[in-house]
């Protein structure tokens, strides 16, 4: 009885939340998809603190009618990826900015604004928008992604038909202190194609983003994102991907600052002999709260998956990791690896981890580890005995702690850029 009451309260709150929102217009098929998403959302309800999947991350500010204001950070140095030759697509507070963006084309590349794609009749988009999001609701509900499918106002649709030379760079600027942005991207990497997508910027005071990626057979998809700076921002993001045969999927996220970041990654490995890697390096202090929630399904033979998540926490910061590897019956010779580690730079910080393995095949190698600890005293003394001052030595060891995650970035220039940002963050903290 109590359970039913709670559920009802949750559904009532969800109805109230979406009451003032209107579904964006588009082609009939798109409007039907959005309507379907809304119905699904109203049936499951937005998460509440009691939900198992949200036990360690409070969803209430994400549920509130209006976002909490977030101060716009005025960075002095050039943003990340500035030195990388790339195709820039700019969103300001969640709205596409054509003037600031490059022309939406390139060799082996088709790019369209989401609203245009959902008003047209593009067969592959029809089969893709919201499809993975819907499928990923089982066995765990992900209502914010459903909310996104229903109400996303902007985004891009990208199709790579061959090797794309320049990375496609999605830049999310934040100018308005109370902006509430919902973006949805749909990406298809065709057979044998190769695409890199970069993402950076705080985006909005409150940001809900979904990226659905289809990596076809023999295709490669690289994703590197940097969520940074504006500390008061709140973000809930989902990356959904299906991975074909002999395909490669790699995603890395750097997060520095942010009072609430929840990054969910849901991967479905469907083709044999593929590789899927997800990694993250997060650092923050004070009321920093960072949550990585990952779900990888192996549904094919001889595939490798890796999850490498590292969090540096200080002065009361909180890090969360929920990671699961599901190996379905028949997914023989699966090689799954998962590591999540928290480095606590003081006694006030917290790292909470829930690693899970669920295996139904009998010939697999899966390993997982989760650790939490402080800077190694022995190593620190060794460095100091060579003349490196404590603060500098601590930074060096902190970067060493993050190294395994950063190594997951394949492109050297991009990895170097990310490393500089992390160094910069540590140096600034030391100075401040």
């Amino acid at each position, binding site marked *: 009885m109590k359970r039913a009451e709670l559920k009802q309260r949750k559904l009532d709150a969800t109805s109230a939340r979406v009451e003032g929102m209107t579904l964006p217009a588009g082609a009939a098929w798109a409007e039907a998809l959005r309507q379907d998403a809304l119905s699904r959302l109203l049936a499951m309800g937005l998460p509440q603190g009691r939900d198992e999947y949200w036990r360690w991350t409070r969803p209430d500010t994400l549920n509130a009618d209006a976002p909490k204001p977030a101060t716009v950070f005025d960075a002095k140095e050039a943003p990340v990826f500035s030195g990388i030759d790339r195709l820039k697509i700019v969103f300001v507070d969640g709205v596409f900015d054509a003037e600031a963006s490059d022309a939406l084309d390139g060799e082996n590349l088709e790019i369209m604004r989401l609203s245009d794609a959902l008003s047209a009749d593009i067969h592959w988009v029809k089969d893709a928008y919201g499809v993975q999001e819907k499928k990923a609701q089982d066995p765990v509900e992900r209502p914010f992604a459903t909310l996104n499918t229903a109400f996303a106002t902007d985004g891009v649709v990208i199709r790579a038909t061959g090797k794309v030379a320049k990375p496609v760079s999605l830049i999310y600027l934040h100018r308005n202190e109370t902006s509430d942005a919902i973006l949805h991207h749909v990406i298809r990497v065709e057979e044998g194609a190769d695409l890199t997508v970069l993402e950076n910027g705080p985006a909005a005071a409150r940001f809900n983003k979904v990226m659905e990626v289809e990596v076809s057979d023999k295709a490669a998809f690289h994703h590197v994102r940097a969520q940074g700076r504006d500390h008061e921002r709140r973000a809930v993001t989902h990356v959904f991907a299906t991975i074909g045969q002999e395909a490669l999927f790699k995603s890395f996220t750097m997060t520095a600052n942010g009072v609430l970041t929840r990054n969910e990654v849901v991967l479905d490995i469907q083709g044999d002999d593929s590789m899927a890697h997800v990694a993250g390096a997060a650092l923050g202090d004070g009321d920093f709260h960072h949550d990585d929630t990952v779900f990888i399904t192996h549904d094919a033979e001889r595939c490798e998956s890796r999850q490498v998540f590292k969090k540096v926490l200080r002065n009361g910061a909180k890090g969360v990791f929920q990671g699961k590897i599901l190996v379905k019956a028949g997914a023989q010779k699966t090689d799954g690896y998962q590591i999540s580690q928290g480095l606590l730079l003081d006694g006030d910080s917290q790292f909470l981890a829930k690693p899970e393995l669920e295996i139904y095949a009998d010939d697999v190698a899966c390993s997982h580890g989760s650790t939490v600890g402080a800077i190694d*005293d*022995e*190593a620190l*003394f*060794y*460095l*100091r*005995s*060579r*003349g*490196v*001052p*404590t603060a*500098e*030595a601590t930074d*060096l*060891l902190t*970067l*060493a*702690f*993050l*190294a*395994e995650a950063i190594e997951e970035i394949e492109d050297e220039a991009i990895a170097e850029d990310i490393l500089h940002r992390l160094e910069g963050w540590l140096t600034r903290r030391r100075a401040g």
Partner: protein
Amino acid sequence: MLEIKNLHVKLEEEDKQILKGVDLKVGEGEVHAIMGPNGSGKSTTSYVLSGRDGYEVTEGEVLLDGENILELEPEERAAAGLFLAFQYPVEIPGVGNMTFLRTAVNAQRKARGEEELSATDFLKEIRAKAKSLQIDAEMLKRPVNVGFSGGEKKRNEILQMAMLEPKLCILDETDSGLDVDAMKLVSEGVNALRDGKRSFIVITHYQRLLDHIKPDVVHIMSNGRIIKSGGPELALEVENNGYADLLAEVEQA
């Protein structure tokens, strides 16, 4: 150069006195060997000199060129010219050997108000010094001491010593875990650094290291004190007769 006066040290965590009045004077360019049975306080002396946590100095002082270094942080002692070659060099995954050395060299230069070494100059210097210690480029790229053999670790210590150019080097059982060839190589590395000004304290159990690194003075340590000092012949005496006779001799006196 270095003067240890009546040094008393106890463990911070427990009420256990380790050093009970160590006196030692090392002059410029001299090589002093400290020998002694297990648990006599040799390694503790090296740790206390380098500023490791966990020890409490209850009495005495340590002067390096007239300055009491016991008040200094480990990094300040290093910048002042003190170097400890560890008995068990620490592995640091994720930090490249080269990065580590460059950071250390430049941190010391900065602390002394000197200009930092440029990347090119550093590279030139380290390549030359690594070559003479038979440390290949691959070892320089690898994370500090990770996956190094015992001999490689010790050679890496000597490389650091060569790059940091300290005034006083303390070698804590550098010969432990080394085969004859590796010991020779390490000793040659140490001898190459003897320039008449740089001083050394060589802590060892065995005389054989002292065949390669010839000491000016040999000290025998026991139960937290230096009980006997003499020339190189003292080491030979230990080698032949063990410590028992020496200890008995002191007890009786």
